[in-house]
């Protein structure tokens, strides 16, 4: 017969179990893996014409995947948080180059060891620049999975409406056409020639580089006060003052730019190639099939503008419970065939050979242009401990220049003064 003490013991044990449930490693199903990333990672791996890249691996290993997806900033934040715990719940996390740095290298496995143990085939094909974005002190903290490289998107209907025969070929033409494409349509909609998101330097950096400037070089020199960069900032300020860029540009985020393009309130934008799908989405866009994309045109020096690129990569937290299994999935997602399938699902492939695939050529209209852009693409900034703060300083002073509270030259000199102490020595 159960005594009152037995019943109390039972209730206590049940309550403790319930309270510890989410945290207790033993309470988790052994055949489940958790991946932390952005929705695009899940979509690229599982949904689209390329099919579910993970299906065969899941069936073979008897593992279910739990995808925890967040916005860009939140995904990186959550990944770091999980990786820094004594015992984590994440098996693989996706990290963006500009959110990582040498100070976080200790949180993740050195994947060179795993590559030596169970190599990813044709690993050398992954561009060295992409690997370098996630390598700190010689340690490979993550394997590149996706790149987001900028192209120039333009609304072909607006170009025709304004009597413009072809898209711009140089940066000067971009500025001139953007002015011409700023107009009020017959239906009363105000169209802006150029729309850009200013939540970080990813889009402004294209115009700074188009004018021969840069922000922080790969050897950690801040060159934003140099004439080329000041020229680029001045160009943006001029476009803003002329009303070519929307008045609320400084508050626009990626999603806002997508809305501008879909609603026909923006004629051109420099954003990742794969936004082509969103801008032309028949369910959301008023101009499906009419928004084309090309590689960024020539810069002032007559060479293609080095497009901004960013590299998402897969890392294995040091506290992951089954690292062998995590590596197995990283390896699976990195196979040449998986890269092609993910490309068909809308991913920016980290293997250039994916662009040569017949199906990719047939289904991805921007494949050739993206491959061309990737050849000279650059990261926004090289990874270092204070990169996020440095980028915020640039955006703050760029805002001052656009608001005309500071001359571009003065504002960029101020950026250099404030960023210099944050750089690695």
């Amino acid at each position, binding site marked *: 017969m159960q005594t009152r003490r037995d019943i109390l013991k039972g209730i206590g044990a049940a309550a403790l179990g319930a309270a510890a449930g989410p945290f207790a490693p033993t309470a988790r199903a052994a055949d489940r893996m958790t991946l932390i990333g952005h929705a695009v990672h899940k979509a690229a791996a599982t949904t689209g014409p390329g099919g579910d890249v993970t299906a065969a691996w899941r069936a073979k290993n008897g593992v279910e995947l739990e995808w925890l997806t967040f916005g860009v*900033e939140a995904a990186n*934040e959550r990944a*770091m*948080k999980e*990786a*820094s715990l004594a015992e984590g719940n994440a098996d693989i996390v996706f990290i963006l180059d500009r959110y990582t740095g040498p*100070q*976080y*290298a*200790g*949180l993740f496995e050195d994947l060179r060891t795993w590559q030596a143990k169970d190599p990813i085939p044709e690993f050398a094909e992954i561009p060295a620049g992409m690997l370098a974005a996630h390598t700190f002190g010689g340690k490979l903290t993550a394997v590149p999975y996706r790149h987001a490289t900028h192209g120039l998107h333009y609304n072909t209907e607006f170009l025709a409406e304004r009597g413009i025969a072809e898209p711009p070929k140089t940066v000067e033409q971009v500025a001139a056409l953007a002015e011409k494409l700023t107009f009020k349509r017959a239906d009363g909609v*105000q169209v802006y020639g150029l729309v850009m998101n*200013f*939540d970080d330097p990813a889009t402004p950096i294209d115009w700074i580089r188009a004018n021969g400037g840069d922000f922080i070089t790969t050897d950690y020199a801040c060159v934003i006060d140099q004439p080329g960069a000041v020229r680029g900032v001045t160009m943006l300020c001029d476009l803003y003052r002329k009303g070519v860029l*929307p*008045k*609320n540009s*400084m*508050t626009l985020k990626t999603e806002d730019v997508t809305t501008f393009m879909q609603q026909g*309130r923006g004629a051109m934008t420099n954003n990742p190639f794969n936004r082509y799908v969103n801008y032309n989405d028949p369910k959301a866009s008023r101009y499906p099939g009419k928004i084309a994309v090309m590689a960024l045109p020539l810069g002032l020096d007559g060479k293609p503008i080095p497009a901004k690129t960013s590299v998402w990569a897969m890392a294995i937290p040091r506290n992951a419970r089954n690292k062998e299994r995590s590596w197995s999935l990283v390896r699976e997602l990195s196979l040449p065939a998986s890269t092609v399938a993910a490309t068909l699902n809308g991913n920016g492939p980290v293997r250039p050979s994916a662009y040569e695939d017949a199906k990719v050529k047939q289904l991805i209209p921007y494949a050739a242009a993206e491959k061309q852009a990737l050849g000279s693409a650059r990261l926004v900034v090289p990874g270092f*401990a*204070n990169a*996020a*703060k440095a980028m*915020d300083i640039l*955006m*703050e*002073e*760029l*805002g*001052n220049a*656009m*608001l005309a*509270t500071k001359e571009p030259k003065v504002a960029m000199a101020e950026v250099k003064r404030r960023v210099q102490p944050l750089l690695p020595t």
Partner: protein
Amino acid sequence: MATPATLAAAPPVVRRTRARVGDRRTARAIHYAMVAPAVALLLAFLALPAVYIGWLSLNVSTYGQPARFVGLANYAELLHDPVFWRAARNTFVVVNAIVLGELALGLGLAVLMQGRVPAKPVVIAILLAPYAITESSGIVMWRYMLEPDVGMVTHVLARLGLGQLDWSTDPVATLSLASLIAIWHHLPFTFLILYAALTTVPRDILEAARIDGAGAFQAFRLVTLRLIMPALLIAVLFRYIFAIRTFAEIWLLTEGGPARLSEVLAIYLYRETFKYHQFGMASATGVVMLAMSLLIALPYLRRMFREVVRGG
């Protein structure tokens, strides 16, 4: 020592006294036992994290690195950062605008609702409605209504020849709009407290004041206001403490932009924590915000204490 034998031998008065002392001790022990869980919770969830934050503010700390003690260096860096001072100024302005605006409007509406108002329950329900709306949804709704070019309110303002509210480029307009949204959303809290307090003011005291020759305004100032002062102080105190953490209104409008000109301390703290992962600096900011809250609250707490003592 009082053994049963000695107690039995003692006179009845001594026995009763000793028994009372024993009862009091037992009662005290029971009181402590009953209060202990609440105190333990307070210690675990408020005091310990507060101490930890205080300690963290004296360290450099980020993900993947052991914390390194730096003394008051984080505070020194904070005090030398012009963005911090601008955020502190903005916070001061916004918090006062919100609390005083809410107080004036809440009091006015509460007084109005004391009189004859047609369909009073419906009007009160309308006044309370913003509190039922999720904060972020409310802010985004306002943002879209005031969006340049396409916002409904923007169109109306333009038709009336009033131009556009430049909240995306003008930090004064941003902070004004953020304050307006905060007042709109939190007004029901202040209104409800003051309305409830006004209903408790005895009519005979007001009638006596009028018989003594007080006008309506004098009666309100010298009688009503004084009687509702404890409730008013509580409303103000709570709103100051909550308003100093104002974040969502500005974050969802401009993220503190343009050029971080509309940033407030909560956004400054957010950046240090979630963007830069500088937990030492973020903790120092948190400690400074706590100190500011206490400074603001102190005069009100003092006044409340006096009211309570006087009431007692």
